[in-house]
C-alpha cells in the first residue's frame, strides 16, 4: 500500500451528482441521507396509522379487512420504530457527533456508509412485502407461536424476520462506529465530562444497540430456523415454550425503547441551555442518570409479560426494577427544569418542541409507571392504555425531541433557518393534535378497549373517543404538512443563518453553516463543557476555521454500497428464492474483499 498519501489541500470542494452521493463517506452527507430516508418512512408509517384511525373512526366499520388491519399496525409499529425513529436518531448521530467532538469524520467512514445503505435496502425489502403476497401481520413484537408456519403460512413473517435481520446489521455497524468515534476521535482537551450531553446519550444508545441487537438476532434466527427447516424452538408440541420468544424479544425490546428515547433526551439537553442562556443544570448528574437508565434497562424486560403468569416473585422483582427507572428519569426531568429556571427563555420553535417534550414525556413516563405495577397493568396491558403510553413517550417524546433537533440544527445542516412563524404553527398544531389523538386513548383503554382490534361493537361506549382520536390525526397531518412546506420554503428562501444563529455553546457552532467537507480547518483544543460561551470562545472559532496545513479526507467508495446490496440480496433469497443467494454471495464477497483492500487514504 502506498505510503504517500495525496494530501488534499483544503478547502476541499464538495463534489456533486448522484454518484457522489452513492459513494460518499462524508458523515454529513450520510446524515442527510439517513434523515431524508427516515422521514419518508415516517410518512409511510403515518399513512398506515391514518388508515387505521379511519377504520376505527366508528364501530363495525368496514374500510379495511381484518387481515389488512393486522398488517397495518404491524408495519406501522415496525416502520415507526426501525425505519423512522432509529434512523432519524442515526441521522443526528451522523451529522453531529463528529462536529460536536471536533473530528473530521467518524472513526470508520466507509462502515458508516455501509450502515446507511444496508438500512435503506433492508427498509425497502421489508416494505416490498406489501406487493409480494402480504405484509407481516403478527404485531411488531411478533409473538410466537402465531408466527409459526402453521398459523402464519404466508411470506409476511419471513419478510419481517429477514428484514429485521438486515436492519439489525445496519444498527450494529452504526453502534460500533459511534462508540469508537466518541471514545477515540475527540478533539484535544475534550475529556469525557466535557462532551455535550447529546454525545453522551449517543454513546449510551450505541452501547444499548450493540448489546440488545444480538439478542433479537438470535430470537429471529430461531424463528427463521423453525419456519425454514422445521426446528422446534417455539413448537409447544415438542416441549418448547413460546414464552421464550417473549423473553428474548423483550430482552431486546426494553433496551430498544431507551434506544429510541435517549437520543431525543440528548437533543433537548442541547436545546434547553441554548435558549435559556444557561448551562445545563447538573450536567454530571444528567450524564450518570442516562448511564444508569441504560444499565437498568437490562433488568426490567418482563414488565411486558405480567399477563404471562411468571409468578408473584418474578412479577414483584420486575415491578420494582421498573419503578426504579422512574428515579433517574425524574432526575433528568428536574434537571431540565433547573436549566430553564432562572434563565432567559427564548421561545424559538426548537425550544417549544423541547419544552413540549418535557410536558409530554412526563405524561408518557407516568403512564409507564402505572404499567409498572403488575396488578394495575393486568387491567391495562394489551389495551389502548398501552397505546396511549407508547405514543406519549414515542410521539410526544422521541418525535417531538427529533423535531426540536431539526429546528435547532437545520441552519447548521443547510445554512438557512426554518421559518419561525410556520414553525410555531407547526408546534401548536402538533401539540394540540397529538393530545386530541392520544389522550382519549387512556380512557378508552381503561374502559375496556383492547388494542389490535380492527373493529369494536357499537354499544361499548368507545365511539366518541375513537372519533376524537381519528379527528386528531388530521391535526397531526396538517402539522406535518406545515413542517414539510416550511422545509421546502426555507431551503430556498430561508433566512441565511451564519455559523451560529442561536448563540450555541458547542463546537459545531464554531464553523460555517453548512460546514465544509473537512469540518474544522484546525482541530481546536477544548477547555470546557460549553467552549463557545467561555472566554476561549472567539479564539477557538478562529482556530477552528483556520486551515493549518494539508488536510486529507478519505476518498469516496462504492464498495460499502455494493456489500450492503450483496448482503441484502443474499438474505432476501430466503424469501424470493435461493437463486438470489448466488449473486448475493458473489457480490458480498467481492464487495467485502475490495473494500478491505481498497486504499483509503
Amino acid at each position, binding site marked *: 500500500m502506498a505510503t504517500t498519501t495525496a494530501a488534499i489541500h483544503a478547502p476541499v470542494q464538495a463534489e456533486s451528482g448522484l454518484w457522489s452521493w452513492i459513494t460518499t463517506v462524508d458523515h454529513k452527507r450520510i446524515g442527510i441521507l439517513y434523515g431524508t430516508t427516515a422521514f419518508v418512512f415516517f410518512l409511510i408509517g403515518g399513512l398506515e396509522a391514518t388508515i387505521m384511525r379511519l377504520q376505527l373512526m366508528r364501530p363495525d366499520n368496514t374500510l379495511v379487512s381484518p387481515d389488512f388491519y393486522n398488517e397495518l399496525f404491524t408495519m406501522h409499529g415496525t416502520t415507526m420504530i426501525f425505519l423512522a425513529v432509529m434512523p432519524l436518531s442515526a441521522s443526528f448521530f451522523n451529522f453531529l457527533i463528529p462536529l460536536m467532538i471536533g473530528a473530521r469524520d467518524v472513526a470508520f467512514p466507509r462502515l458508516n456508509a455501509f450502515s446507511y445503505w444496508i438500512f435503506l435496502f433492508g427498509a425497502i425489502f421489508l416494505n416490498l412485502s406489501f406487493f409480494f403476497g402480504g405484509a407481516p401481520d403478527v404485531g411488531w413484537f411478533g409473538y410466537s407461536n402465531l408466527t409459526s408456519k402453521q*398459523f402464519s403460512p404466508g411470506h409476511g413473517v419471513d419478510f419481517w424476520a429477514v428484514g429485521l435481520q438486515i436492519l439489525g446489521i445496519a444498527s450494529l455497524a452504526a453502534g460500533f462506529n459511534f462508540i469508537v468515534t466518541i471514545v477515540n476521535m475527540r478533539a484535544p482537551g475534550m475529556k469525557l465530562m466535557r462532551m455535550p450531553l447529546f454525545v453522551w446519550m449517543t454513546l449510551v444508545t450505541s452501547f444499548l444497540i450493540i448489546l440488545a441487537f444480538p439478542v433479537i438476532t438470535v430470537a429471529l434466527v430461531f424463528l427463521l430456523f423453525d419456519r425454514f427447516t422445521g426446528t422446534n424452538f417455539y413448537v409447544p408440541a415438542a416441549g418448547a415454550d413460546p414464552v421464550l420468544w417473549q423473553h428474548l424479544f423483550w430482552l431486546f425490546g426494553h433496551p430498544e425503547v431507551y434506544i429510541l428515547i435517549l437520543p431525543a433526551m440528548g437533543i433537548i439537553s442541547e436545546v434547553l441551555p441554548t435558549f435559556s442562556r444557561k*448551562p445545563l443544570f*447538573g450536567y454530571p448528574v444528567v450524564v450518570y442518570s442516562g448511564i444508569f437508565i441504560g444499565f437498568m434497562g437490562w433488568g426490567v424486560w418482563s414488565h411486558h409479560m405480567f399477563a404471562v403468569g411468571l409468578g408473584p416473585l418474578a412479577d414483584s422483582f420486575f415491578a420494582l426494577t421498573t419503578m426504579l427507572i422512574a428515579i433517574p428519569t425524574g432526575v433528568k426531568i428536574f434537571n431540565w427544569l433547573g436549566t430553564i429556571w432562572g434563565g432567559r427563555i427564548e421561545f424559538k420553535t426548537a425550544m417549544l418542541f423541547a419544552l413540549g417534550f418535557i410536558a409530554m414525556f412526563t405524561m408518557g413516563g407516568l403512564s409507564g409507571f402505572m404499567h409498572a405495577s403488575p396488578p394495575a397493568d393486568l*387491567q391495562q396491558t394489551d389495551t389502548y392504555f398501552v397505546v396511549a403510553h407508547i405514543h406519549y413517550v414515542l410521539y410526544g417524546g422521541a418525535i417531538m425531541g427529533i423535531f426540536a433537533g431539526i429546528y435547532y440544527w437545520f441552519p447548521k445542516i443547510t445554512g438557512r433557518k426554518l421559518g419561525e412563524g410556520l414553525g*410555531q404553527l407547526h408546534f401548536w398544531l402538533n401539540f394540540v393534535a397529538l*393530545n386530541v389523538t392520544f389522550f382519549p386513548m387512556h380512557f378508552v383503554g381503561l374502559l375496556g378497549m383492547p388494542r389490535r382490534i380492527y373493529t369494536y361493537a357499537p354499544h361499548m361506549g368507545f365511539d366518541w373517543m375513537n372519533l376524537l382520536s381519528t379527528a386528531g390525526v388530521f391535526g397531526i397531518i396538517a402539522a406535518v404538512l406545515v413542517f414539510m412546506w416550511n422545509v421546502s420554503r426555507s431551503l430556498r428562501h430561508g433566512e441565511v443563518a451564519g455559523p451560529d444563529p442561536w448563540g450555541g455553546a458547542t463546537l459545531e457552532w464554531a464553523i460555517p453553516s453548512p460546514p465544509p467537507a473537512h469540518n474544522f480547518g484546525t482541530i481546536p483544543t477544548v477547555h470546557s463543557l460549553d467552549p463557545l460561551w467561555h472566554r476561549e470562545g472567539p479564539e477557538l472559532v478562529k482556530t477552528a476555521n483556520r486551515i493549518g496545513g494539508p488536510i486529507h479526507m478519505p476518498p469516496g467508495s462504492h464498495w460499502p454500497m455494493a456489500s450492503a446490496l450483496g448482503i441484502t440480496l443474499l438474505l432476501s433469497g430466503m424469501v424470493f428464492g435461493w437463486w438470489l443467494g448466488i449473486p448475493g454471495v458473489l457480490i458480498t464477497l467481492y464487495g467485502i474483499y475490495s473494500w478491505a483492500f481498497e486504499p483509503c487514504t
Partner: protein
Amino acid sequence: MRFRTHPMMFRRLMAALLVVLPLAFVAGCSMQDYPQSSLHPHSNYAQWIQTLLEQLTFWVVIIFVVVQALLIYAAIRFRSRPGAPDPKPIHGNTALEIGWTIAPALILTLVAVPTVLTIFKSQAPPPEDALQVRVVGHQWWWEFQYPDLGITTASELHVPVGVPVNISLETADVIHSFWFPAMGGKRDVIPGRTNRLWFTPSDIGQYPGQCAELCGTSHANMRMALMVQAPEEFQAWVAAQQLPPIEPEAGTLAAQGKQYFTQGQCIVCHMIQGVSAGVIGPNLTHVGSRTTIAGGIFPNDAADLGKWIINAPARKPGAKMLSLKDMAMSPEQVPAIVAYLQSLK
C-alpha cells in the same frame, strides 16, 4: 405568517387537559355506558386492583401537576424580556439533586409496598370451595368446561354470585388472553402451559369480556360474556345443561334438521352429546340456551344462525368453519338445521 406564542395559551391548554377532560369523562361514566370498563369492579380481585389503581393515580396526578406547574411557571416567569440581564450560569446544586432523587424514591416506596402486597394476595391459591372452570382458547372463540359438573359450553360463562371461581386456562392453538375487566386483570392462555386465575364475583349481572392478545385474523371477534347469577338461578342453569340434548319430536322441522346435521359434515367438528363427537368447533349440546354465537358477536336468533351456517367465514373473517357450499350441503336445509339447533335449549 407569524404566530405570537403567548404563555397563556400554554397554560389554558394544560388547564383544559387537566381538569375539563377528566371531569367531563367522570361525569358521563357509568357501567351501562361502558359495559367493558375496567374501572367498575364487580369482584374481590377487581376491587383490589381498583384500590391499587386509585393510589397509583393519586401519586401520578400529583407528580404530573407538580412537573407541569413548574414547567409552565418557569416558562412564563423566565421568558426573555427586553433588557433582562444575562442569567447566572448556575451549574447545579447538590442539595436539590439529592432532594429530587429522594422524593420520587419515597413515592416509589409508597406505591411499591401495596403493589407487592396486591401481587401476592391476588396470586395466592384459591379457596378450597371454589367452583372449578376450565377455559380453552380457540381461534377465535372461548370454550368453557366445568369438570366437576360435566358441562361444556362456549362463549358464555355462567357463575354464581359470591362463590370463588377457580379458572384454569389452556389453549388449543395460539396465545390468547382471558379478560373480563369487571372481574379483574387478564391472564394469557399459552400453549403448553396451564395458567390460573381466580376471583369471587360480587354482583349479579352480565359482563362482557374479550380476548386481549393478538391471535390472528378474528382476534377482534373473540368475545365472551360472563353471567353472574343468583345461586338458585345458577343451579337451574347447571341442571338444564346436565340434561342430555332434547330429542326433537318426529316429523317436526327440528327432527328434519337433526337428520341434516348428522348426515352432513357438522358432526366432524361439533359435539352434541349422544349425537356427534367433533371437537373442533363449539359444543352444541345446549346451543339453543345461549344468547350469542360465534365468539359472542352475533345474537343467537334464527336469522343470524341461518346466515352463520350458510357461510360462517363470510360473516366472521377467518372463522375455521366451512361454508355450506364447501360442506356440499344446500341452503334449503338451513331452516331445518336452525330449528334443530334452537330446540337444543
